[in-house]
């Protein structure tokens, strides 16, 4: 092939390839624009005030709304006993969210000039920002302690190797009274099976608070996961049990809902929802038979809520915590719920 022919071939190829690339990108732009318009048959969403402190008798669920329309990805609220009803959207966008006793933690993307970054934003009861902290990765879990003082979050950090698949997590704990930030649980002393333990591959995720000083979380090392109990003041975690991920402590503090890696399930869907009685260490498989990859939230002392992939991001479901009953769909197009206000069966 002559040099001219080669150059012409290259030019023609550049034109065709650029056309494909631009066409595909425009298609994606159009699709993104469609998501900003309400969908026929989707939930009704309107702007309004969303609060993290409910009036007595008015129990609400606040969550990230993923329904198509102008309020997509905003925190929205619905009555807890009528979650399928019209949504009130707050104008505050979050990827992950949790709240308790008037304190909210919102993990949010911040669009920069050359790179997106993420931050953890502490919200007051009217969703106003109190402080924010830069994050080093992609948000995945967030929790607030029962009295609203402590907050914790987990992000995914990826290695930078070629075609990198080397993921790790980083979990931080914040005291919103003193604004003391412990930016990585990996600095904690690990007591594993009664002995001091160190590992370069130690990863923590999924904190759930018992009180302002104590929490449960998952520690992964050497390909195994462990339920750990952590002490914020002593900066120590102790392993309690294997194969417990994303623990969620019940309102009474006696049980943990978690996702368990069940042998024999497909590698891309390995988890089932379980509860663990902390007194007897007895596990109970819940009635949800699908793969659950979420940190569950207790609706009340008897029921847990969790998200499953759906057509519009994710759908929220609930299932009894005693292993009986059936999964029930709470709402479509939403995730990361927090229940605001005392529930009728809440027990502390």
């Amino acid at each position: 092939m002559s040099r001219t022919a080669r150059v012409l071939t290259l030019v023609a190829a550049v034109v065709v390839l650029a056309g494909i690339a631009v066409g595909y990108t425009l298609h994606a732009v159009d699709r993104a624009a469609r998501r900003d318009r309400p969908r026929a048959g989707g939930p009704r969403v309107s702007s309004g005030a969303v609060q993290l402190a409910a009036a007595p008798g008015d129990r609400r669920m606040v969550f990230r709304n993923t329904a198509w329309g102008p309020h997509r990805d905003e925190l929205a609220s619905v009555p807890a006993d009528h979650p399928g009803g019209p949504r009130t959207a707050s104008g505050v966008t979050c990827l992950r969210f949790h709240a308790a006793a008037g304190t909210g933690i919102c993990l949010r993307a911040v669009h920069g000039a050359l790179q997106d970054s993420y931050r953890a934003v502490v919200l007051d009861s009217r969703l106003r920002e109190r402080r924010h902290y830069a994050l080093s990765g992609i948000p995945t879990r967030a929790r607030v302690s029962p009295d609203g003082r402590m907050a914790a979050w987990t992000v995914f950090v990826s290695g930078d190797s070629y075609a990198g698949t080397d993921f790790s997590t980083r979990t931080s704990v914040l005291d919103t009274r003193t604004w003391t930030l412990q930016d990585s649980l990996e600095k904690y002393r690990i007591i594993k099976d009664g002995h001091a333990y160190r590992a370069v591959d130690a990863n923590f995720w999924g904190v759930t608070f018992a009180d302002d000083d104590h929490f449960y979380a998952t520690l992964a090392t050497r390909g195994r996961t462990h339920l750990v109990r952590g002490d914020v003041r002593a900066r120590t975690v102790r392993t309690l049990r294997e194969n417990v991920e994303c623990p969620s402590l019940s309102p009474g503090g006696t049980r943990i809902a978690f996702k368990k890696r069940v042998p024999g399930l497909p590698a891309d869907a390995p988890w089932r929802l379980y509860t663990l009685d902390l007194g007897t260490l007895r596990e109970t498989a819940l009635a949800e038979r699908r793969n659950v990859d979420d940190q569950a939230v207790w609706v009340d002392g008897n029921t847990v809520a969790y998200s499953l992939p759906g057509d519009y991001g994710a759908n929220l479901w609930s299932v009894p915590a005693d292993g009986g009953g059936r999964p029930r769909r709470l709402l479509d197009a939403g995730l990361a719920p927090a229940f605001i206000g005392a529930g009728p069966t809440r027990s502390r």
Partner: protein
Amino acid sequence: MYLADSRGRTPGAAEPQPTAARGTGPGRRHAAAVPGTVLALGTVSLITDVSAEMVTAVLPLYLVTGLGLSPLGFGLLDGVYNGVGALVRLLGGHLADRGADGGRHKAVAVVGYGLSALCKPALLAAHTLPLIGAVLAADRTGKGLRTAPRDALISLSTPARTRGRAFGVHRAMDTAGALLGPIIAFLVLRIAVDGYDAVFAVSSCVAALGVLVLVLFVPARAPRADTGAGGPGAAAPLAHQPRGREERESGGRVTGARNPEARRPAAREPAAVTGRAALDLLRQPELRRLIVCAVLLGLTTVSDSFLHLLLQRRLDLPVRWFPLLPLGTAACFLLLAVPLGAVADRVGRRQVFLAGHLGLLAAYGLLIFTPTAGTAPTVAVLALHGAFYAATDGVLMAAAAGAVPPRLRGSGLALVGTGQALARFACSLALGAVWTAWGGRTALASAAVGLAVCAAASAFLLSDDGDGRTAR
């Protein structure tokens, strides 16, 4: 591209000027130093790295927010993929040397780049972790296949005396692509919210373009610049150029039958390159010493992620800096690859290769004994780390090329590269164990002691060779 053509047709065109006499003008010197084939291969690597790093940059986000997956534990297979990738590299190098009349480096490189390019659109269809893992494994296989033939082509199309610079130019272009890719991916995601598929589609088009540039503008047969470059008396005494043995060997491709100095059986039977001939390379003392040194030093070279993690912890950096640390290393590599490659051509590649490891040792030392936390030591460690890559990555291949006859170039470079990669992998495993037992600082301190010992041993081993200058 034009240079590639003209050089290809006139293999003897590289003027064998004494180093001291060269450099009447920097522009002219560069033009003479970097053949078109190298620029074409650099362009291919730049384009391919843009494509690859676009995917790498958005993959975590895609898995977590696009697919809603928890990718933890996924990294466990990384080591396996790396091991397989290193072995595939051997295969790629050897296959490239086989084939009639001077090897089929380009054909094997096209297969390698092509396989990786096909993996980009495959990501559009793969929606589960196992499938995505399989696609990434295929991508790495492609990378493993193409690395040795590409480096062989670079070395074969460059006069021996400027090989360090040529590899430096290639590595700089490669790294530039790696830095550009994430920016382009970000721009696509900026205009198309959640448009991960658009990123993969654009990446596919870019990858296809890279393969096309390779097919169209890299000559099927290396111009063999190294056969004509350094005749007797070509290099100035000051320049410590690799002539002697290597030029004789490569000259042996042309004059092999009548060259009485062509000692190895390989050089006497130019027709068939067998696996046996490739393995016989290990008996060649000069190459063997280089491989031993690359392995020794690789055994004490900590992985990037390990170094960056320690950097963040030891210097107590805010976690938000963490994603920027690899960029610091890459930027410094990009800036120094060409100058250090050129320096290696002048003072000797083995010396620069060793000096690069001393730079790495200095980075370890700073991390272990750092007096203060903060910006200054961070910048210093990243600069040393980038300089380490600039002084060793391409330079090692340039040095190894001087110890391998052209007809076995792919196999020889693959042996060196694979040895180094497997040694580094072993280092990661060992460091993980030491970290578990005694903590991160001890792990780094033992790596530092090991590196000092291995560097001393390498200096002793390589002192005989001096870039072939004193080769018998």
